[in-house]
């Protein structure tokens, strides 16, 4: 089954994963061009599923109805594909990486003495980036395999690689700066994606 082009699911899903995003990020996560994403957001807004926030911080988020609609639509999609076992396997592989990855984020942000990492020690930063490499390889493998069962997961290997490439090229914000397509952003999106696809809420097993 293919999702009809007018289904709000791609944009609802993008907002469920990112929590809050501007149209360009919605388009990127949903794999749409920006005009299409904007049109779908407008339709979903008319249906009371999403809302736009302007002010100190601008972007779109789901309404309560939007969350419910998202859960229903997503469950239908997953049921139609029969991909649940593949998602469950990916989820357990992911959870094994979650804590190590969060620790890498902390190491990137804090020196061992607890002071903020001011990124003046290239050797220290290089060691953290080097330690990200095995995690990167595994998460790319996990999502690549999952994409064979559920193609929309195919964006993760690309998104992780893009963040990693920026990082290796010297853009330190690509590690964990929020709402910027950073490695941590993509990681949190993947985590939410697995949970939503499995119809689960976050629990202690998933970390805080």
């Amino acid at each position, binding site marked *: 089954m293919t999702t009809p082009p007018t289904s709000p699911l791609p944009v609802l899903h993008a907002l469920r*994963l*990112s*929590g*809050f995003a501007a149209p360009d990020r919605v388009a990127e996560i949903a794999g749409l061009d920006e005009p299409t994403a904007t049109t779908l957001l407008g339709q979903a807004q008319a249906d009371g599923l999403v809302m736009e*926030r302007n*002010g*100190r*911080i601008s*972007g779109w*988020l789901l309404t309560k109805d939007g969350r419910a609609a998202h859960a229903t639509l997503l469950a239908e999609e997953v049921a139609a594909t029969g991909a649940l076992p593949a998602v469950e396997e990916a989820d357990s592989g992911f959870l094994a990486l979650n*804590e190590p990855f*969060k*620790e890498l*984020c*902390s190491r990137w*942000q*804090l*020196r*061992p*003495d*607890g*002071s*903020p990492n001011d990124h003046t020690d290239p050797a220290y930063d290089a060691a953290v980036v080097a330690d990200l490499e095995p995690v990167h390889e595994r998460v790319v493998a996990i999502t690549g395999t999952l994409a064979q069962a559920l193609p929309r997961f195919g964006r993760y290997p690309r998104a992780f690689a893009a963040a990693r490439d920026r990082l290796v090229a010297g853009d330190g914000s690509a590690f*964990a*700066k*929020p*709402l910027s397509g*950073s490695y*941590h952003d993509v990681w*949190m*999106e993947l985590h*939410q994606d697995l949970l939503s696809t499995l119809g689960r809420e*976050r629990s202690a097993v998933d*970390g*805080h």
Partner: protein
Amino acid sequence: MSATATLPVFAFDHPHETPPRELANLLGGKGAGLAEMTSVLGLPVPPGFTIGVPLCRAYRESGWPAGLDAAIAAQLAGLEERMGRRLGDPADPLLVAVRSGAPRSMPGMLDTVLNLGLNDETVEGLAAVSGDEDFAWDSYRRFLTMYATTVLGRVPSPTTGSPRERATALRRELDVPQDPAAQLRGAVEAVFRSWDSPRAQAYRAREGIAGDLGTGVTVQAMVFGNRDAESGTGVVFSRDPATGENRPYGDFLPRAQGEDVVAGTARTLTLADMASLLPEAHRELTGRLALLERHYRDLCDVEFTVERGRLFILQTRVGKRGAVAAVRLAAAMMQDPAIALTPAEARARVTDEVLARARTETLTAARQGAVAGAVARGLGASPGRVSGTVVLDADAAADATTDVILVRPETSPADVHGMGVSVGILTSTGGLVSHAAVVARGWDLPAVVGAGELVVGADAVRDTAGEVVFAAGDVITIDGTTGEVWRGTVTDTTTDLSDAEILARDLPELAVLAEAFR
């Protein structure tokens, strides 16, 4: 030449040509340590022998090495003579401990089988000799349990009743050999095999230790800390490993064996208690500690057992220590004429990282609590002190027109838009790698996480007793360094003291080292 002479199996007091502590590749870390303690330091170590690391490699390549049975038998005969007891003697049995010991310390391998040599006959002998049936049967029960879990790979069923009943039940359930020589061979082989256990392999992969190194096996006469009222066991540091204070620091457990202390299952006594219970053993222990410190020229960590009033040293190591202690110890040992640590040696022990940590810990300790009246304390996850109006959900933060502190049980991507416009974050659950911590640091927002005594509700934050601590709309202050939370706006009046003044007062050793390292 006999097979024994050609195989690397050595008594602890074997006269090696090289100082034993440099022989970790041959003897393993534990075997090298025991040889060093026995032959170089002259410590009262229970005697024994070490099966060298090359024999583990030989075993892994082509099975049980030819001649090893004979080599073990020859060493065992020497050990029996020295102890005046024989393995398997039903009247007064020698018991041994079998331990693994790789060239580098490696958790995940078979650790220890104690009381090896007990069987249905010798347990009666031990009961008679010690005059304590419960002690003998309890030792047998411990042996059966350890042998089952570590050698046979079986988890025995729980048992109840007297020590004799419990051991007998285990005996019936488990297929543990009765012949002490077979027990010994089984345990040695299990140590060899444990080199390739999944946990050991995982540890090596993580620590970058070569997979073909292999491990040594030590076989050592048992002494009994649980033998009578004049017996006990403990661990002691030559100085306080937390503060660096120059005074032995440790735990003592009367009438007990080593794993009781390590497992933390029993309440331990202090060294002062030991001094009043076993004054002579305590005096000898203190004297040995001073000698050991001079030998290693560092803080030492010693495991010991007292059997019928007599002190045995089981293990010595250079002790682990906290950052503040590392700074104090290095400064003190440079000034101590008996040790006279050189600045280069001190520098090797006190890295920049340790210096920075000691500095931060000292400043945090001085400033924490400097402003009275903190209503909660969590983990300082992202540094900085900030005041703001409490909001309890992300939308309220996004709608606010003043400086707000977002207070949540925990955060998720659904909160990110509110976090981005807050001046600070406070959560009641989660640690330093939680979503809240990572995002807050990503935006340089002060954050306190895991303030566990707070219960975040829909309109107010309560303590665990249900009393409101503060509500939405109240102003609070958080300190992302110390983890403290106050009601209202708090300014740091602490201290007219600067960082430098606090350090000069609380950790003057830092300046001593800085001068020496110049």
